[in-house]
């Protein structure tokens, strides 16, 4: 397949050249004018196709292209399965979120919703049913309590091959993002990473195969891509935590638990120790609902003391831009951005942060962004839901005072 410019339609506007992430488009002479030409550096990402105002850039099939697999083979795959991870033998929240997203997909397809649970006991499997699973494939072997790539990969691949779900979801966590790619390779399946939205293609008239539409950010969050797996099953995806709504919890819900034996496979890694850190090196920004973040505008460690007071009042976790960390005003563990952590809290309050792209990529998917900065042109205001142009040393103390008044004695 190749992507080419339909030259007579090209107006020479060069919008495509500016959009190509791989420098694969250049202007070339064509009959007394200059037109865009795509060269061999093209990686088929389709960014140019989406920006051409004339629709002059098109996909062309080539002789060697593989024909899509016949739908018959794939229609035997039915059902939506979620991998419900656990930590310390307790089912993690992300599993309930996956059941919420999975239920929506399963209902659209008219198929069952199942969950796979390894290394936790029956009580946790029952919880998954209450959160929406029709069936739970359950291995309670304590050897699987600590996450380990090889046995998890072997067992999940076996379960998928046995029960043939058309869609398999996992959380985009340290666990999911580590072993799901191994499962996908083993099953020759397509895997889309870190999805923020899942939907199904509209059914077509012939009643043919319906593909999952997996939507996810790329290029550091600067674009969104819709990914499909047209010729392979299962369709796999890891899903960003705290974006999907959890399923409806029904304590009376009934379902089936199918026990699984421990996997038989090579195990060449061993978890020797599990260290928990809350106050130490690891600041749990990823799980925070509210983050109160400070940048160069805070002027020094005293500014962060003020911010810490605000954070305490709103039950928030302290964050920081790279500039503040580099100055030594706050520890690296609090850094949000391209060279720090990527976060997606419900509320992100940014104080004295200009909003350089390196910072934005770490927090722009927050639900609500509130920004305080004394420069009206600061780029942070392009992404903020609520913007306050003002001095942090006037606005924040006033805000702290007001919140204390609201809260009362």
């Amino acid at each position, binding site marked *: *397949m190749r992507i080419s410019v339909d030259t007579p339609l090209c107006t020479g506007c060069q*919008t495509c050249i*500016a*959009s190509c*992430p791989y*420098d694969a488009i250049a202007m070339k002479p064509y009959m007394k004018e200059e037109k865009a030409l795509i060269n061999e550096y093209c990686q*088929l*990402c*389709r*960014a140019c*196709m989406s*920006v051409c105002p004339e629709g002059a850039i098109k996909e062309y099939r080539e002789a060697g*292209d593989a024909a899509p697999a016949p739908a018959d083979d794939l229609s035997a795959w039915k059902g939506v399965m979620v991998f419900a991870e656990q930590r310390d033998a307790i089912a993690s929240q992300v599993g309930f979120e996956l059941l919420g997203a999975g239920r929506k997909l399963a209902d659209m397809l008219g198929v069952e919703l199942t969950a796979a649970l390894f290394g936790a006991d029956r009580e946790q499997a029952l919880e998954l049913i209450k959160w929406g699973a029709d069936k739970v494939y359950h291995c309670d072997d304590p050897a699987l309590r600590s996450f380990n790539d090889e046995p998890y990969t072997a067992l999940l691949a076996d379960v998928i091959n046995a029960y043939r779900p058309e869609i398999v979801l996992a959380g985009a966590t*340290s666990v999911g*993002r*580590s072993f799901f*790619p*191994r499962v*996908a390779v*083993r099953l*020759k399946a*397509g*895997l889309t*990473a870190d999805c923020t939205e899942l939907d199904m293609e509209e059914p077509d008239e012939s009643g043919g195969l319906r593909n999952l539409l997996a939507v*996810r950010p*790329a*290029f*550091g969050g*600067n*674009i*969104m*891509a*819709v*990914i499909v797996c047209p010729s392979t099953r299962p369709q796999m995806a890891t899903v960003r935590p705290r974006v999907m709504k959890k399923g409806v919890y029904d304590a009376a819900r009934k379902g089936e638990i199918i026990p699984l034996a421990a996997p038989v496979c090579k195990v*060449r*890694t061993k*978890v*020797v*120790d*599990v*260290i928990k*850190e809350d106050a130490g090196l*690891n600041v749990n920004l990823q799980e925070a609902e509210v983050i109160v973040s400070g940048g160069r505008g805070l002027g020094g460690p005293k500014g962060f003391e003020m911010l810490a007071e605000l954070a305490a009042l*709103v039950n928030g976790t302290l964050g920081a831009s790279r500039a503040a960390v580099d100055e030594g005003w706050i520890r690296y563990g609090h850094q949000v951005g*391209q*060279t720090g952590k990527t976060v997606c809290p*419900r509320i992100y309050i940014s104080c004295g942060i200009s909003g350089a*792209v390196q910072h934005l990529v770490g927090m722009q998917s927050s639900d609500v962004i*509130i920004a305080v900065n004394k420069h009206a042109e600061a780029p942070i*205001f392009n*992404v903020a*839901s*609520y*913007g306050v*142009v003002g001095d942090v040393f006037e*606005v924040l103390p*006033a*805000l702290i005072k*007001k919140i204390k008044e609201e*809260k009362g004695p």
Partner: protein
Amino acid sequence: MKIIVCIKQVPNTSEVRINPETNTLIREGVPSIINPYDLHALEAALAIKDAGGATVTVLTMGPPQAEAALRDAVAMGADEAVLLSDRAFAGSDTWATSNALAGAVRLMGFDLIICGKQAIDGDTAQVGPGIAEFLDIPHVAYVGRIAGITPEAATVHRLMDDGYDVVEARLPALLTVVKELNEPRMPSLKGKMRARKIEIRKLGRNDIGLDEKEVGINGSPTRVRKIFPPDSRRDRRLISGTAHEQACELAGILKELKCI
């Protein structure tokens, strides 16, 4: 010990700007760099080399201009460089990329492979574990500390949401690393001179023994259906007034949002 470091040449996505009118990517003038996570991977390999007894080879799969990234890696201290490049690889998704890189690695021979956690253009973090699966070797992802390396095993810290796991992996193995691991060194003058002259080994599809159907767009189970700009914030409100008035309105908003 033979260490292979997989690197990728990427556009510097933190410098990519968005056209405010069309909301589309402006790539013009944005430099190509070695993927930042790969620098940490390379540094880890070079540190093992410094301790004695290891060679470091950098490998990249990319278009011909990716050679520049390999030379930058040699300038930092890599001993050898391999470019896996073929028009047939264009449009590869992570499955096809892992397959091709594994093919190259098999040809090259190794004891340890170190990769960055993810590339800042694709952002998938899938290729490292994918290569390990194709090679049937163990892997540990999100490595924030390498506690010890022997010819038999690597002992590392895998970062989790709430702390870290201490994991021991038998060699040969693959590690994907995060930024907390180390501080990448600057290239040396001697390194830069060496990088200019070094001969880069070039491999194509035939060299790694893969069929046309297994590589590039034809070997990719995932397809990009569409690309679009992220939603610009719908509700955008600038709160004006004195600092006191602004604070009052903010407090009201925080109350509505159930923050206080």
